[in-house]
């Protein structure tokens, strides 16, 4: 068992080397050995997939490895492709070893009509398919809930990565290592995906009664809500309509989002010279302009009744706290309510203006 764990611990190192310049010393036998290791790890994955304890132990050992993307048990299964593709893209590999790599990776073994590892042929075919199949004619999806294929794919992969994690691990390990603003878009897509899968069998029961903390969506949400900086970046980056759609499904997010909007709104100051609300300093990550704030609340008004009521109640509350003024220019919340009421009056009196206001 200890040998096994020791072997598995070598995988991160092996992958790191395969991407580095150290391969320039490799000769064909070394390459063969590396590929053999890859196949061996895949074999291990197949053997221990159904044994949770061993899986957890092996996963833990993998994480002990060198810094880099945190690996999990699932990576053992993908080892041949990971290794092969990494080596293929590594220009430091000397010609003799490279020649051997090409033969083992791509060519059919002699005497066989159909090659074994030609899932790479399938990869090339699928890549060509992606280039051939035309994207939908409308570039922006009609509803925010409809995910574009690339984004949907990234969300699915993230989801399966999170699901691969053994118990008690939590998503931080994976999520923290993911690059910048992109991760928020993918997380939003993931939350939409998960909810879509949920709807299948749960009518009637309220959200609170459901799986506490089970399922990656809940874990992701608590990760997001756990750090105010993270939440702020998340809400700042994504468009208002998407956030409202998410809030409809994840009420905790809705509450936190409203709170965030409140804190952003409170930072605005009225500039009497210009006659408008401006931010006290130049726009940073933490700030929202008046127009954006207004637009975000307008998205709430377009959302489902529950959210609309919550937003209105929140605004009324804030207005009262500020002194319950009816005049413009004194409280940002008064002004917002006035703007919103104006829009709604227009809407109720002439419904065709609805399209105008949704611009």
């Amino acid at each position, binding site marked *: 068992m200890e040998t096994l764990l020791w072997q598995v611990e070598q995988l991160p190192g092996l992958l790191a080397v395969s991407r580095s310049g150290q391969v320039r010393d490799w000769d064909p036998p070394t390459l063969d050995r590396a590929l053999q290791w890859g196949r061996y790890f895949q074999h291990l994955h197949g053997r221990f997939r159904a044994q949770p304890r061993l899986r957890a132990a092996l996963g833990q050992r993998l994480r002990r490895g060198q810094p880099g993307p945190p690996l999990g048990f699932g990576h053992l299964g993908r080892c041949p492709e990971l290794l092969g593709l990494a080596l293929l893209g590594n220009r430091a590999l000397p010609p*003799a070893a490279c*020649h051997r790599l*090409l033969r083992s990776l791509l060519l059919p073994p002699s005497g066989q009509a159909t090659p074994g590892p030609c899932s790479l042929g399938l990869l*090339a075919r699928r890549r060509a398919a992606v280039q051939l199949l035309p994207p939908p004619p409308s570039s922006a999806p009609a509803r925010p809930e409809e995910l574009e294929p690339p984004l*949907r794919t990234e969300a699915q992969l993230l989801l399966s990565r999170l699901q691969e994690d053994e118990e008690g691990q939590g998503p931080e390990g994976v999520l923290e290592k993911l690059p910048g603003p992109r991760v928020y878009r993918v997380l939003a897509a993931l939350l939409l995906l998960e909810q879509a899968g949920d709807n299948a069998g749960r009518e009637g029961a309220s959200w609170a009664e459901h799986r506490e903390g089970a399922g990656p969506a809940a874990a992701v949400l608590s990760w997001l809500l756990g750090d105010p900086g993270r939440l702020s970046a998340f809400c700042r980056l994504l468009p208002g309509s998407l956030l409202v759609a998410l809030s409809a499904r994840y009420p905790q997010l809705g509450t936190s989002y409203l709170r965030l909007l409140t804190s952003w709104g409170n930072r605005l100051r009225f500039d009497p010279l210009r006659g408008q609300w401006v931010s006290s300093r130049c726009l940073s990550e933490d700030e929202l302009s008046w127009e954006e704030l207004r637009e975000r609340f307008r998205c709430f008004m377009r959302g489902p009744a529950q959210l609309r009521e919550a937003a209105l109640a929140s605004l009324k509350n804030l207005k009262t706290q500020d002194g319950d003024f009816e005049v413009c220019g004194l409280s940002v919340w008064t002004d917002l309510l006035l703007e919103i009421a104006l829009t709604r009056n227009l809407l109720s009196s002439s419904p065709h203006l609805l399209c105008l206001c949704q611009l």
Partner: protein
Amino acid sequence: MAQDTAVPKLSFQYWLNKAVEWGQTTTLESQQDVCLHLPKLQEFLQQIYESLKHMNSTTAIQRFPLIGQLLGRLCWNPFVVGYDESQKTLMWCLCCLYSKEPQNPVELKANSWILSLLCHLLSSSEWGANKVGTGTFISALGYTSADYYSKLVKNIVLSLVTELKGNQFNGLNIQGRVSDDHVNVVSLFCIPLITLPDVTPLLEALLTYHGGRSQEVLSSEFLEAVNETFLKKKIALSESAILSLWLRHLPSLEKATLHLFERLISSQTSSLEEVACIIKDSLLPKAACHPAIFRIVDEIFKNALLETGGAPEVMTIIQMFTRCFVQAHQKDNKQHKFPLKAYFPHQHQPLVIALLKHPFDLSATLWSQHLKYITDMLKAIIEDKSIRTYADLFESWFLFVHFGEWADIAAEQLLKSEDESSDTFLWLLAFYYSPHNDKEKRTQILVEARAVYDRLMMLFSCTTLSVTDLQAAASTKTDKRQPCTKHLVRHLLISFLLFSSGGHKIAQEFISHVILASNTTNEVFGLLIRTAYRFNQLGLKNQRAVKQVNELLQELRFTD
């Protein structure tokens, strides 16, 4: 190096020119051109690979100096890369060209170029032109481009299918987000991808899509390609998709019918159950429940019958097809089914209804009566001079051929029943084998048949017979017999051998001696498997005739 001459220089130049041409323009015409040439190109690439795999890289370059250009251009053409197995062959060729000990900068450069081309194909370095972040993101998760593209293709197919279905709601055509031109383009671009399993839902959505225009929205190359792939069994589609394909593209339906026909003629089927299996497998009987399809298939069978001059094998195929069709029709529980007689609209309706009653659905005691009923109607049609034309006569006969099991029953009844209606049964058999317009000819055939039959009946109760006795009974004085009469006589003889007490003892000998000598194995075989099928379907097992048939068939199969 004997493979050297396998790839002529001329075709290399041809394909290189084509590759250059395709790379220069992206018009619809040039893309259609690529799709047309994909199968031949794949063959050509296979040939190249066969030559290359025995050479080292230097020899390869000497032999095919322009191969780098060709492969490079082809690898950047997604139609070529996406087609069937072409991408594998391209990669194999590239591997063969990689030199393991580069001697000079040129070879080093060539190696580097090969690697970048492979990385481009497998996306292991760059990840799409505008998605710089995707690669890093996916790698950070620990996945490869293999995982990414496998899911991405499925998602793209899903979104396209949703769009196509979204245009049609409750059968109405809403002007949705997809225009007919767009659908046409999608169908063209799918042509290389037909055998990719991920794309099958899109194929089905396309095949069942009906645009706003009355003209065909899908590209005809697409429809042809799908049909070809389906007939070669390289792809599995739902029945409704195939039905839709055949309804909207006549050449595909014709090809499918001819393909079935060829399969039946060329395969060495040893029982009619196998034939029925092949027929059902083709999905044509079910499709034929749609009257338009039935009409086309029937026409094709009619032409086949005419071209082969009424060959008995073709007649058997038509009968088995009709049987499978009727069964499919009965199983079909759609509300607006056509009644069966509506499939034969120009025929005498009572006759159609009578013929649609299959012998297996009636008890054996009613067979004689039913046969008389059928024969009387046929006679009336044939001999009614006022409305009869040659075409009418042919149509009536063709109709009867569909249900030719009744002719077999007639032959059996001639020998087994004590009925006085041997005239009727002989007439029916004669009609089946030779529907002559000329009354004289008909009478002559009947007379001959009658003579043979009478002689056979005289030998019927003899328990010891010899081959020569039987031969004498069957022969004619003038020995100048019409071929159609010969068919009839053979049918009578086989029936005699099976059902008479003396006949079964000499059956084996008679068949091998006389019949095989006259080169009529196929016909005899055909008659025997029809009889075997009939016995199986009726559930008869232990009768002497049944065992006899099976033994004879065994012998024939053995000697074949």
